[in-house]
């Protein structure tokens, strides 16, 4: 692992922990932006240049703007819901640790036979320039690429339908939990 890769990895992990353990959702969102940018750097280290750029534009840009926008819109105060006990975080962390420690050795053992020469050969072929990925997308994957536009269209329609208010209804719907407030 290169020095650059190591630094970016460290930043990614640190900011990920920041997302999870920050009490304020806004800070979580900022940490997530840092995390996504660090990930873009990691992609770049792994020679996936096109994806690195797309990551910055789509994730760190568009999606996070959307998230921040929603956060602003809802203007949340401190949580009103039921508190989760200490048991659940411990349980979750234990499970997470066990997943990492069981899966990683399996993956590593699967690829330990690769020789240096082989890997350099492969690294050359997997250079993710815009041209190379574009040829793949408009070549072998052109149908899936076109279909993905359909998915996005349906996403747009769904989002509009879900967030549209019913006629003449302002505020919480009757019968909902917060209906009386």
């Amino acid at each position, binding site marked *: 692992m290169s020095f650059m890769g190591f630094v970016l990895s460290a930043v990614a992990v640190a900011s990920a922990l920041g997302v999870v353990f920050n009490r304020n959702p806004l800070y979580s969102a900022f940490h997530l932006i840092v995390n996504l940018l660090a990930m873009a750097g990691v992609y770049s280290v792994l020679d996936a240049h096109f994806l690195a750029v797309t990551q910055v534009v789509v994730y760190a840009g568009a999606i996070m703007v959307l998230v921040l926008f929603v956060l602003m819109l809802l203007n949340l105060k401190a949580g009103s819901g039921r508190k989760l006990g200490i048991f*659940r975080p411990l*349980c*979750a962390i234990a*499970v997470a640790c066990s*997943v990492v420690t*069981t899966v990683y*050795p*399996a993956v590593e053992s699967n690829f330990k036979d690769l020789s240096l020469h082989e890997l350099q050969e492969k690294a050359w072929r997997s250079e993710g320039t815009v041209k190379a990925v574009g040829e793949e997308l408009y070549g072998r994957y052109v149908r899936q690429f076109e279909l993905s536009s359909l998915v996005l269209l349906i996403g747009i329609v769904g989002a509009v339908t879900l967030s549209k208010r019913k006629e003449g209804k302002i505020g919480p719907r009757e019968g909902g939990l917060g209906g009386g407030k």
Partner: protein
Amino acid sequence: MGSGDLRLSLVVLAPALGALLSYVIGRRSPKLSGVIASGAVLVSFLCSVLLWQQVGATGSFTATLSSWISFGDVSLPLQLYFDKLSAVMCLVVTGVGFLIHLYSIGYMAHDESVARFFSYLNLFVAAMLVLVLGKSLPVIFIGWEGVGLCSYLLIGFWFANTEYAKAGRKAFVMNRIGDVGFIVAMAVLYTQCGTLDVVELGQGSVLSKLPAGLAFLAGLSLFVAATGKSAQIPLFTWLPDAMAGPTPVSALIHAATMVTAGIYLMGRMHGIVELDPAVPAIIMWVALVTSAIAALTALAQNDIKKVLAYSTVSQLGFMFLAVGAGQYAIALCHVVTHAFFKACLFLSAGSVIHGCHHEQDMRRMGGLAKAMPITAICYGVATLAIAGICPFAGYYSKHAILGAISGTTNPLLVAAAPFIGYAATAIAVCTAFYMARSFIMTFLGGYRGEGHPHEAPLVMTAPVGVLALLSVIGGFLLVHPITSFVTGPLPATAGEHGSEGFVSLLIGSLPGLFGIALAAYLFLVAPREKELLRRIFSPVEKLCGGKFYVDEILQVLVVTPCRKISGIAFRAVDQRIVEGSGSALGSVTQAVGELTCRITTGQVTTYVLLMFIAAAAFFSVFSQVR
């Protein structure tokens, strides 16, 4: 056999399919339900007729529906067997059944759950046909239980009324007691003879394997089974209570067909019944006592259906008298004629009840002959038939039974035969008396009820008319042909028939005429003497009205000890062992449930966590596998 197989299967399958269709389709369109059910029985009837026409030449048909029990060298196929005996029963069940289905279309037209009714009714016909056609005792037992179930369902048809539901339960439990006899008989026969096939059990070489004591046990067990189904002492009190069901049900199940299953079983198994002469003797005495008690009880009943119910019990006793005398063919004849006139009586009574707005008490009827002439004529004809007046149907079979009693060759009965004959004649007088009484109270005199009685619609009067016609000519046309027809499967009938002159016909009708005349005198001409007689005989009447307290005696002798025993068993076995293990199981389930209900919090995050745990477990297992 070839085509016989298909037609024979169709005889049973048509009503079975009809039971399904009449419910499924009938729930959408109730009017179709009755048509489908009647059509199914008609198909069955026509198939029976086709088979009956050929059975004289071929002797019997066998149809294998499927294999049922098969393990090791035990093999028990689901087989139907059509011989001359089943032919007669089949024709009665499907023929009378069809007419009663037709009648029910009118009678049940305004009921909410008409589809359920016809479905049950068709199911009953199917079960009854399985009973009649079963080739081995277990197959007969399927039908035996099936008719019991349908009887229970139909007695309690209006289960919203608790009394009716209880009547259904009583019938069910009493029938189960009889079933114990059936099962014991099957067990004895299988262990000793190694077969349960009715044909093989009719062969002397197979029957000779039965040791003397066990032969008595087998025969008696079969008779116990028959007492349950055919309402003989001590298991007869369910039948009057069974009148809680709709009237067509009373006609079909509790008069014409199901209650004759005991007679059929006796006839089918006559080889075993006759092995020990003590069994026919017991049958004879039980039948006589039942017949007498039922006839006396019927004298004091005011509910028109109750009169008919007790009369049914009494007539069944008559059939068993013939069985006890060894004249199964004559018993079968009485089954047939009884099916005609009793179905006719019940259906007429149903028309009366229908016309009088569900009034069953004869004290609030009277003078109905003007309002419903057709029904009155039919009821009158059937009354003459059951009273045994020549030339109506009942005369021939009853006369034959009286002849059979005097002609018995059973060494245990020869001495008592004259007495039994006189007693049976007295019962015949009694029968004529109470039937005439019911006719007079219902149809003659002035109307004592409320509202305006009206004649039943054509769909109801037509079947009654057909049955009335059969009650007139049935005996004359059928009794002698039937006795000679069924000679193959049943022993030949002793004694000569058809040579009676006019005088002997008149003499034979005398008991009936006397009973009718007495009733007419007391109820029409001289009511004052009736009151006088009533005062003199009031203790007797009380005894009769109380059904001879058979229910109460059963209560003390059977029900209370049973309750005590079952109470002990309940405390020792049920509460400790069964309930203990049950509640242990329950508390474990509850504990597990409470544990899992903690998990089922509705919290999405909890579900996600569980999902991750499962995925982690999955991963760890698979990484180990590699």
